[in-house]
């Protein structure tokens, strides 16, 4: 279902063709990173820390090197040491520990051998001597005055650093007079919320192959959200120039933010350099869970004041995010994305806190779901206390264009109100709540980002085209690029071949994060097409014998008064005669990524004997600006919703006292599966983004923001119990129900 503001109608944009890569994906022909097999290829295995925090006293690889099939071993000594202020320092040390391990599973050495069994046996034979250090596993422990230091190379960002600290970042936003507004408010709700680490849960484990030639140049094949980022990070960790590394993108089996960084590539490249043979790494699921970035856990203390008429007057928030053994910007993004309501008085103190856990990584709308869990639960409670419909209270206070974000900048044109109205007008909202069930509503948003993208469009002799970009196809971007090019050029979408090229075959393109691919890379595609159209009109003018200004491009043909239209294929056929190949490249640093807002609605049933929550019905409404390919927009909304429901109900990292993850498999780390959930119903709202030629807003991240609070509010509606700690798993919910 789509709720569309007045916007132009398009011939191709907004249609639902089968994706160009669909046949390869469903027949198994598509090549993922672990599929590559090269002649002479070796297999790599990592040696990982069995301790949550320790000094490395010595590493003895002599026994391993003497084992059959073993070709090389690398340790931290094989990589340059970067200064802690270097932006690549933490990635470098996370890839390979230097003298100290910061979490259970941190890599301390790696082996390349002829077979996987030989590599694993050799890894087990490497002797590492450790001196154990105190393990810090909670935000409270890490922020205590006498806390052991988690990582001695850390320094605090955004404030004047005062030496060793477990604070990675400190961000403070405020406006108005929060204390005065709270004291004048008719109602004040104050609650504390806690969430634990959850994983992105992509189905494809990290994998790569690196092949270093005699000239010292390395080719890397890997799965990532941005192969240019893999190139620059790999080169930085190795101390190489970027030109020594070529990265070819494999298909990606999910990333959700977790594949915006690297773990394997520099190690594979160094082992390949040492052995002169290709080296392949493919993580196990256990390695993925133990050693790649989860989303951070959080602790949020929130106070919101309102007047009896429902006006929200003040918000006071203290928030801390546990970012693992290294600094991340998690707390900053949490603070920035909090509460898009008309709040004249606001105060947020946000802390990124180091703990002896895996380095946290981005996860769809990083840190916004935790913040929305707190804010949307408290707003729901205010509505309950005031006897107001929770959706109406949100509509009363919803931010519109010109209202201030938490960080103080006015919102551009946004569709928050429209998403709320879409839910209010939905059949779901206007249906009766099933007997015994509860209904919950919550909202969320993500800023989205633009950044750098490049695209090349080549027209072929017969009027077909190739669209070349540097953004990996994570959520259907090949189809989206082809649709925008088809709309511009006026040719059928299947006459266009969209490809994702390696780092030496297309212009620089930033990593796919911030829901930016369809927005920014799409804009590069549109710009390249428009350059081509200018060229085509000029060529047509030559053929027609008129001035270029007298020619227009209309529905796939050059048109000029008094002349027969010249279709694209007629012009490409005579390209040699009119000036040579028809090709155009566009690059940009895109600004104006429009925020995307969402409102979710859930009906749940709680089994009061077991604490089990069943989602009976779930509807997600989200502003896509303009949905280029509605099916893939809906897919993003559904995927984000499901991941958020899993976060709400079951997913959690469980650590022992030494920081070892105790549930490092999909048997024990409980992701929702299809049989757990109803079909997620979607309503695409279209409030076009004025900064994009087709009005696109990124849609990949926002969908995960509302579900945590949506489910919590629905459980409160069903049971009267407001859960403030995630996951709301059966044992925890049952305990809370028993305390009523």
């Amino acid at each position, binding site marked *: 279902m789509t709720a569309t503001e007045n916007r132009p109608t398009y011939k191709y944009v907004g249609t639902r063709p089968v994706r160009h890569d669909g046949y390869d994906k469903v027949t198994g022909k598509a090549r993922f990173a672990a599929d590559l097999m090269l002649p002479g290829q070796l297999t790599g295995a990592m040696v990982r820390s069995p301790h949550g925090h320790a000094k490395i006293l010595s590493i003895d690889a002599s026994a391993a090197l003497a084992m059959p099939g073993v070709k090389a071993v690398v340790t931290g000594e094989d990589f340059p040491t970067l200064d802690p202020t270097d932006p690549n320092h933490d990635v470098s040390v996370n890839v390979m520990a230097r003298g100290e391990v910061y979490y259970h599973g941190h890599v301390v050495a790696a082996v390349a051998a002829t077979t996987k069994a030989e590599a694993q046996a050799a890894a087990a034979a490497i002797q590492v001597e450790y001196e154990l250090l105190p393990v810090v596993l909670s935000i409270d422990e890490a922020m205590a005055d006498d806390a052991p230091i988690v990582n001695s190379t850390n320094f605090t960002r*955004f404030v004047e650093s005062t030496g060793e600290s477990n604070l990675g970042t400190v961000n403070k936003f405020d406006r108005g007079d929060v204390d005065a507004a709270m004291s004048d408010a008719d109602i004040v709700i104050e609650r504390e919320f806690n969430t634990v680490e959850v994983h992105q849960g992509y189905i494809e484990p990290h994998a790569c192959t690196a092949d270093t030639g005699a000239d010292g140049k390395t080719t890397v094949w890997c799965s990532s959200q941005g192969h240019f980022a893999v190139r620059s990070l790999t080169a930085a960790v190795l101390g190489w120039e970027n030109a020594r590394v070529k990265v070819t993108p494999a298909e990606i089996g999910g990333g959700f933010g*977790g594949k915006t960084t690297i773990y394997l590539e520099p190690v594979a490249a160094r082992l390949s350099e040492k052995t002169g043979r290709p080296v392949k790494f493919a993580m196990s699921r256990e390695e993925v869970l133990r050693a790649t970035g989860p989303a951070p856990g959080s602790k949020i203390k929130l106070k919101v004041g309102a007047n009896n008429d429902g006006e929200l007057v003040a918000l006071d928030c203290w928030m801390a995010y546990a970012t693992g053994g290294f600094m991340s910007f998690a707390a900053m993004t949490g603070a920035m994305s909090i509460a898009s309501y008309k709040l004249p008085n606001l105060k947020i103190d946000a802390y990124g806190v180091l703990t002896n856990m895996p380095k946290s990584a981005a996860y*769809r709308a990083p840190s916004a779901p935790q913040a929305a869990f707190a804010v949307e639960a408290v707003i729901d409670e205010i509505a309950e206390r005031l006897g107001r419909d929770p959706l109406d209270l949100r509509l009363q206070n919803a931010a519109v264009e010109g209202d201030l974000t938490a*960080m103080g*900048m006015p919102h551009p044109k946004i569709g928050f109100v429209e998403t709320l109205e879409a839910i209010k007008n939905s059949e779901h909202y206007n249906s009766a709540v099933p007997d015994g069930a509860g209904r919950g509503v919550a909202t969320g948003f993500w*800023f989205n*980002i633009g950044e750098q993208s490049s695209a090349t469009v080549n027209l072929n002799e017969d009027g077909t085209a190739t669209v070349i970009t540097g953004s990996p196809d994570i959520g259907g971007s090949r189809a989206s690029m082809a649709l925008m090019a088809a709309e511009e050029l006026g040719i059928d979408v299947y006459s266009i071949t969209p490809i994702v090229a390696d780092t030496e075959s297309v212009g620089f393109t930033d990593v796919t994060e911030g829901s*930016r691919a369809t927005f920014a890379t799409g804009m590069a595609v549109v710009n390249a097409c428009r350059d081509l159209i200018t060229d085509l009109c000029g060529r047509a003018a030559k053929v027609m014998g008129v001035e270029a200004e007298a020619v227009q491009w209309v529905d796939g043909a050059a048109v000029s008064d008094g002349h027969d239209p010249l279709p694209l294929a007629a012009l490409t056929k005579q390209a040699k005669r009119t000036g040579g190949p028809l090709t155009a490249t566009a690059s940009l640093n895109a600004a104006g990524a429009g925020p995307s807002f969402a409102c979710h609605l859930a009906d749940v049933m709680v089994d009061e004997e077991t604490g089990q929550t069943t989602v009976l019905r779930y509807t997600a409404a989200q502003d896509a600006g303009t949905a280029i390919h509605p099916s893939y927009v809906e897919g993003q909304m559904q995927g984000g919703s499901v991941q958020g429901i899993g976060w709400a109900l079951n997913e959690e990292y469980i650590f022992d006292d030494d920081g070892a993850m105790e549930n490092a498999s999909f048997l024990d780390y409980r992701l929702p599966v299809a049989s757990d959930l109803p079909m997620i119903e979607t309503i695409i709202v279209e409030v076009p983004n004025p*900064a994009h030629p087709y009005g696109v807003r990124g849609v990949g*991240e926002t969908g995960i923001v509302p579900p945590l609070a949506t489910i919590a509010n629905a459980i409160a509606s069903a049971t009267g119990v407001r859960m403030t700690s995630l996951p709301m798993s059966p044992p925890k919910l049952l305990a809370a129900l028993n305390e009523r």
Partner: protein
Amino acid sequence: MADHRRFTGGDQVIEVDGATVAAIVAALDERYPGLGEALNTASSVGLHGEIHAEPTYLVVGDDDDVYFVAPLTGG
């Protein structure tokens, strides 16, 4: 950003002249030594409702409001 108020004595809104973000940052640094480096190393800029990464050469009009905000990322 609030954290930059340590340079400005708490002021959040400052009026300076400058035709580009670089010129504005230079003017701010002249008035509040150290603020320029802080803004250059950890800021995006909001202008006319759009957030700009790496905004150094962004052209600014006489009456424009320029917002220095934390650099945005995503997942």
